[in-house]
């Protein structure tokens, strides 16, 4: 099977939005209605099949690695109190979920507590708290994939924002000597020359 990312012409680290956009652009490009000629139409349809398959494949891969909160992710049986909090979070009632978490005494706060606190913080845009909580949850329960995925989703989102990981300032055109001199000359004498 060909690399589905190559078929859509996207980087594997591209965001879900970019993947969707790439799919839509390709669907528009290879839409059979653009090809009155039967043979070309057939070729376009074959191409569309390939694109659809690639898109579905990527969805499958990403669901498996999804960092998005899935209230019914069943990795192991959970205490009812946490099941309830997960339901509150999924239904958008963050303040009730938050209060319910705070009501749990400190002695009873395990990995699941920190994970759910992290989820609420993340939804509120409190990324520093979210990150510390996810890290704590992973530390307390290293085998839990859900906790790891929540943490790595933050990395993915950060990497996706820059359009690929680690676009540091060295990779761009750093100011070379020629540019630097031209800039200085422009500053000093540019007003005379223009």
């Amino acid at each position, binding site marked *: 099977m060909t690399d589905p990312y190559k078929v859509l012409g996207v980087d*594997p*680290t591209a965001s879900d939005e970019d993947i969707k956009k790439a799919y839509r652009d390709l669907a528009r490009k290879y839409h059979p209605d653009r090809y009155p000629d039967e043979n070309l139409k057939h070729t376009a349809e074959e191409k569309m099949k390939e694109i659809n398959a690639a898109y579905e494949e990527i969805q499958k891969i990403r669901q498996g*690695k999804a960092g998005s909160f899935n209230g019914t992710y069943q990795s192991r049986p959970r205490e009812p109190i946490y099941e309830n909090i997960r339901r509150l979070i999924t239904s958008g009632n963050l303040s009730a979920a938050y209060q319910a978490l705070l009501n749990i005494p400190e002695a009873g706060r395990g990995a699941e507590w920190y994970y759910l606190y992290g989820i609420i*913080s993340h939804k509120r*845009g*409190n*990324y*520093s*708290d979210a*990150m510390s909580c996810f890290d704590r949850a992973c530390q307390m329960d290293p085998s839990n994939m859900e906790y790891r995925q929540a943490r*790595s*989703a*933050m*990395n*993915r*989102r*950060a*990497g*996706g*924002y*820059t*359009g690929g*990981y*680690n*676009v*540091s*300032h*060295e990779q*761009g*055109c750093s100011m070379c000597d020629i*540019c630097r001199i031209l800039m200085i000359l422009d500053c000093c004498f*540019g*007003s*005379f020359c*223009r």
Partner: protein
Amino acid sequence: MFGYVKAYEPDLKVKEQALYRAFYCGLCRSMGKCTGICSRCTLSYDITFLAIVRSILTNEVIEIKKARCFIHPFTKRPTVKPCHTLKFCSYASVLLTYNKLCDDVNDESGRKKLIASLARGAMRPAYKRSLKHYSALSDEISQSLFALTSLEKTNNGSLDEASVLSGNMLACIFSYGLEGTQKHISEAIGKNLGKWLYIIDAVDDYSDDIQRGRYNPLAVDDANDKLPYETLVNLKIILLNILADAEAAFDLIDYPDSETGRMLRGIVDNVLHIGLVKKIDEVLGKHSADNAIRIPDPDA
């Protein structure tokens, strides 16, 4: 707080760069007229960006004229003509700077306090002029700053709590006088940029603050004046996540369907996706021996 929100000019189109600089010049000129010569020292590209965003949101009619100025007396430069947006930004810049200086006078000591006090004195006439038009905004800014410094004094607030207060302050400024969708979009932009600025400022001031025993929200118990690499990676992830939230708000903006609208979009995209990202690398890179902060690949 200032000097972080800047476009990366090598990646701007020539016409976009000209418009960007025309806004800067226009803001300077507007400051001279509205708030006096002294207020020009509060001129920054950060406030220029505020002017650009507000111009887009309020559908400001932007006119350019060539003008000379004191610093560039020999050639006329394209300058955005005075308009409501530039006037607002001139006053807002003074209010922000003045309130920040009041804070410094109250909370700092020694040389920093003296400099703040002198600067505040010089800014007082400009401040009084701004109060005439925007006293409500001044109140909102000083309340937010007060809440922030109170939290910092407790030494108990989390980085998120403090950055949210900074975000609230900027949200007031970005959304002042706007309504409906424009208000919601500008509030979200202000909130996220405010959070981003607070954290980046904390990283930038870290070494100085630790050396002088001043408060810094990132400080841990050891006295090392450089942040550890792992912390820098985490901060980079947090800062980029905040920018992703800001980007979502920017994506809702209806840019004017005109050449100017397209240029403004180009400038905003540059600041959001290149300028601010490079600034993260620049500020965080100062703490790292090899200047590069690499986010680990989560799929590895």
